[in-house]
């Protein structure tokens, strides 16, 4: 059962949903155009396999998609909600935040809302301000939500499977740039990625780079460059943003004493702020130099490639931040 195979992030996501739907008849998916395979092909073939009742095309009604998923989750099914672009989830915030996240609590534990909200996030394809956002920090702020952000094919599968089995509402952020990325993926129905456990994507002793989603790969690229210059960066892929693996970060910091947090989202009030704050509160005396955060400036995402590019964190920016830290 420890075998693996190589596949893309999107293939891994399809496999995860297929396996969970085979395993549990109460799992179903709903969203616009799923019958055609979804905008990114992440449902390809599934409607043929499971029929239109379990891979359900819906009206353009995001509020109803989310609200209906909650109703169906509270009454014995496990809906997987497709939001198409994370930005459109903003049409269903009441349903997710006021309703789904709080149902279990408000009703004194009577309700369970085992639903997964899949939100393709991030800058991709030059789609400008309303098709490119990364709002993970919002969800981490909301009691009742689990927040996941796979960076690899392995975790695209393992976290989607874990999310479907989770009894609470999960927001699963899939980065649009990662769909074609290949990686080793564990075989086996129960090869879940544990929720709340970070992955040390590269180990190193000089500095800790904490990241998640697509930015993990920019950190790894930066670590390669740094290694050639004699700096060993440890790259932590958080994978789960709530609950998140504080211990993994703290442990790395005790070793390195230096921290750069890298995110695609707007830096201001991004999830990196929470990490920085927790580290400042908890590991003050371990820190040999100030924490740094890299992210997008507080600017909407523009259309023209060369403008969009200005907002992105590059491996060069990461290496510069690392050198500043190591030298201070």
């Amino acid at each position, binding site marked *: 059962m420890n075998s693996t195979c190589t596949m893309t992030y999107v293939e891994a996501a399809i496999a995860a949903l297929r396996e969970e739907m085979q395993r549990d008849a*109460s799992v*179903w998916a709903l969203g616009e155009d799923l019958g055609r395979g979804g905008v990114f092909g992440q449902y390809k073939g599934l409607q043929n396999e499971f029929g239109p*009742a*379990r891979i*359900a095309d*819906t*009206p353009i*009604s995001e*509020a*109803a998609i*989310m*609200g*209906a*998923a*909650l*109703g*169906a*989750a*509270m*009454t*014995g*099914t496990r*809906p997987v909600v497709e939001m198409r672009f994370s930005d459109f989830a903003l049409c269903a915030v*009441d*349903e997710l935040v*006021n*309703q789904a996240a709080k*149902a*279990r*609590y*408000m*009703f*004194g*534990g*009577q*309700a369970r809302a085992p639903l997964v909200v899949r939100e393709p996030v991030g800058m991709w394809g030059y789609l400008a301000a309303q098709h490119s956002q990364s709002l993970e920090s919002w969800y981490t702020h909301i*009691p*009742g*939500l*689990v927040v996941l952000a796979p960076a690899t094919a392995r975790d695209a599968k393992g976290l989607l499977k874990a999310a479907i089995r*989770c*009894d*609470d509402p999960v927001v699963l952020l899939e980065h649009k740039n990662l769909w074609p990325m290949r990686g080793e993926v564990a075989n086996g129905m129960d090869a879940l990625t544990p*929720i*709340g456990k970070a992955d040390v994507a590269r180990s190193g002793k000089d500095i800790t780079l904490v990241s998640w989603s697509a930015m993990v790969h920019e950190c790894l690229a930066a670590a390669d460059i740094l290694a050639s210059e004699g700096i060993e960066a440890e790259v932590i892929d958080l994978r789960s943003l*709530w*609950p998140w693996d504080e211990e993994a970060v703290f442990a790395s910091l005790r070793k390195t004493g230096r921290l750069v947090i890298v995110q695609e989202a707007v830096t201001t009030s991004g999830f990196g702020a929470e990490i920085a704050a927790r580290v400042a509160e908890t590991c003050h005396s371990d820190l040999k130099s100030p924490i740094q955060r890299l992210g997008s400036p507080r600017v909407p995402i523009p259309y023209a490639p060369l403008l969009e590019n200005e907002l992105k964190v590059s491996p060069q920016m990461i290496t510069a931040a690392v050198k500043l830290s190591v030298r201070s």
Partner: protein
Amino acid sequence: MQKPEYDAELVHALGGAGLLTDQKNNPDIERLKDHYRQMLRIRAFESEAVRAIADALVPGFIHPSIGQEAVPVGVCAHLGRDDLLLSTHRGHGHTLAKGADAEAMMRELFGREGGTCRGKGGSMHIADFSIGMLGANGVVAANITIAAGAAHALKLRGKNNVVACFFGDGATNRGPFLEGLNWAKTFDLPVLFVCEDNQWSATTKTSAMLAGPGPLARAQSFGLAGTSINGNDILAVDEAAKNAVASIKNGGGPHFLHCRTYRHGGHTGTDPAAYRDAAEAETAMRDDPVATCAQLLRKADISESSIRAIEEEATAEMRRIKDNASHAPWPDKRIVYEDVQDLGAVEAGR
């Protein structure tokens, strides 16, 4: 924008074979008594709850449904335990009519141990999942899409149950009303949508804010079959709900009931409704569902003392319940950290 006047014929539009008239002439007495009892229980429960505000027993808001009791009672008479119900901020009537424990409800309103939601929800989130009452809601119209989803699950699971979804006239101005009704019809789901049209949206007259012919016309434009009835006439509600539930269970798809009624009091338990035209209120309250039902009982030759006995029983029950609830212990404050989520919940403590 004027509301269309009550069209008695509409009551029969659903194909009920003259049952209503039958009932009017020759009602099932035990059923009618039961309706009367349930309406009075709701009224007594809410009257006690309103009085409890003055006694500082109710920490939050309550929204009484006094004057609207015939709607939940008439509808819930056709729901079984496995049928589901979703409600609004004005949800005590629906919850009681569905069969919830009144003392657990009162405890919830008082924020005590043994409340339906362990004191975490209060009136606006009252719920009893054990009898299929899936929650009141603090957000107007939010229950509509959730109800559609509950029905979606019933259909996926091959159940032959229905979901009753109650909401107000004001709720028909919110987007989820369109999205939820279109959803239910598109997927052909077993939902009974019940619009309790009490003419008011909090402190604003709904007619000033609602364009077009009204809630039923909207529902029809989304393809739903429906009826507009006098929601203060328990027999009309009983009849219409009977037909609607039968139609839904026979695979007729979602159904819409527009029930014209009136909110006797203010928007909340402490709102004197001074903004309301006195003449409007007086006229409207003349059509009181409880009084009307009592009249029907009298007509059916039920004695004054029997009628009074039902009232007194309901009043006594709720008085006792209020008293019990007011002596119930407070919840253990450590439960505040429970029921958040399985993962990451413990860590949330401080």
